[in-house]
């Protein structure tokens, strides 16, 4: 997946837990699309309405900690977020995001360097460019990239089995 894109940035802090991403009271809603307007509402109720498809989130360390609820990466994807860039990711969220085809990039230095609303350039698997400065990032292993580019684990399995 050699792709480069530019995107508008929304910034969040450290330890963004999955109860922040999608609070318990909205989990009973019928579809992920129904839940999406409430994403991040305990912290920033207005944020979900402001995000446009193709935007990215830049956060601090331990993004996605807490509950294993898979609705968390799903609502982020449903909002059209192209990728989440964070200092680090909590492990259950990491697996869930990959399994749902949500691209994650670790880049600890970026959070301090970028202001909300700025545009950054993302060269997947290679670097992020922000205000002319290049921040190298690691590539996901090929097997995980295959899952992300297929749109998630189930789709990747279907593709592998010749069903898509």
């Amino acid at each position, binding site marked *: 997946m050699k792709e480069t894109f530019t995107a508008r940035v929304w910034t969040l802090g450290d330890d963004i837990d999955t*109860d922040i991403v999608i609070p*318990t009271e909205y989990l009973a809603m019928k579809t992920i699309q129904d839940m999406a307007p409430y994403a991040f509402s305990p912290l920033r109720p207005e944020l979900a309405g402001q995000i446009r498809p193709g935007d990215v989130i830049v956060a601090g360390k*331990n993004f996605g900690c807490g509950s294993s609820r898979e609705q968390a990466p799903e609502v982020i994807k449903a909002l059209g977020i192209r990728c989440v860039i964070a200092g680090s990711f909590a492990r*259950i969220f990491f697996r869930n995001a990959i399994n749902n085809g949500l691209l994650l990039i670790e880049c600890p230095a970026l959070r301090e360097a970028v202001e909300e609303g700025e545009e950054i350039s993302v060269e997947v698997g290679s670097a992020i460019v922000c205000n002319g400065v290049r921040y190298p990032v690691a590539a996901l292993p090929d097997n995980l990239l295959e899952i992300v580019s297929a749109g998630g684990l189930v789709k990747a399995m279907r593709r592998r089995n010749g069903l898509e």
Partner: protein
Amino acid sequence: MGMTLAEKIIASAAGVELVRPGDIHTVELDLLMSNDGTTHLTIDMYRKLAQPRIADVSKLVWIVDHNMPCDSVKTAASHKKMRDFAREHGITFYEGKGVCHQIMMEEHVRPGQLIFGADSHTCAYGALGAFGTGVGCTDYLYAMVTGKSWVLVPESLRFDLKGRLRPGVTARDLILTIIGRIGANGANYKAMEFAGEGLKSLTMSDRIAICNLCVEAGAKTAVMEADEVAQAYLAQRGRTPKAIFHSDEDAVYAGVYEVDLDSIVPVVAKPHFVDQVVPAEECRGIRIDEAFLGSCNNGRIEDLRAAAAILRGRKVAERVRFLVVPASAQVFRQAMEEGLMKVFLEAGAIVMNANCSVCWGSCQGVIGEGETLISTGTRNFKGRAGHPNSYVYLASSETVTASAILGHIALASDLPPMEE
């Protein structure tokens, strides 16, 4: 170079002699637990598969505990989907019997097993020498259909426990102290192993409380050797180990921490992060609106006994709701037989059926704007127990009970002596 306990369980599940941190292995899973938090999503995905099948239905355990009993037509539909599917496929199914992890410990977990649970607190199973880890519903679906999954072998951190906890200090104070020390991502991707002489003095209830909370430090799992205490717990429930593993003398750890149990004091985790841990004394006097005793972390008979011992002959403060929620129906029945429920009711507590309750902010006991809860639950994230602008303090059963009596955060030792 030897292997740690966690590495040995993975090696066994992968059918290989040796694993090292960073290796990725395909493993055969022993048990697959899922609850009503996400099972409906798993079922939806399962039904869309080209050739849906369950690899080994005997490995599946499904438990309704998060919205139990259900609070809305929507959750009723979700439960019905789960119940009907479980019946159709012959899946072991519980509802109304308690919090998933407590039921798993009481009925299913065996030392040496590798277990996936679609719930982050699955790491509790390490108290019985098993490798339990939380996953999402897609990973769960894959494991359900294939019986397998992949795991990245985690580095291990060892916590050497020395000495004994002092009276009035609990295992919950210990694990909160450790999380406060290493931070909310201090063990991210890692296995936390507890060992040392100090472990021997800890009961199974203590050990479950410790392992259960390790995900709050980011851990992939928590493990303890299944010693005499663990084996006695297992034997009492008519189960036998799958295998009992020990960490090798020359096993390699990413970090070793010495923890002097005698030095631990009652603590509180302040809003809104589990690692914001301070001595409980520093929070003394903070007014509370609600107190919660329960959850997979602290809803066992030992917790109820400790609370009842403090509450006996006393009353819950006016304008404070004190929710007592046993972790399982077994715990509830035991508490009845021991007369504890009478103590709670006479003191003015609200006793509820075994379920996850306000620990995850669902149907019961949700708090309103500006309100403060002191809780034995697992998390104090912003909005976790209700309104986004509300406050959750985490503490031990003893501290929660004393706070319920005085109406503000307090230690059990703050209570005035009882009149004769």
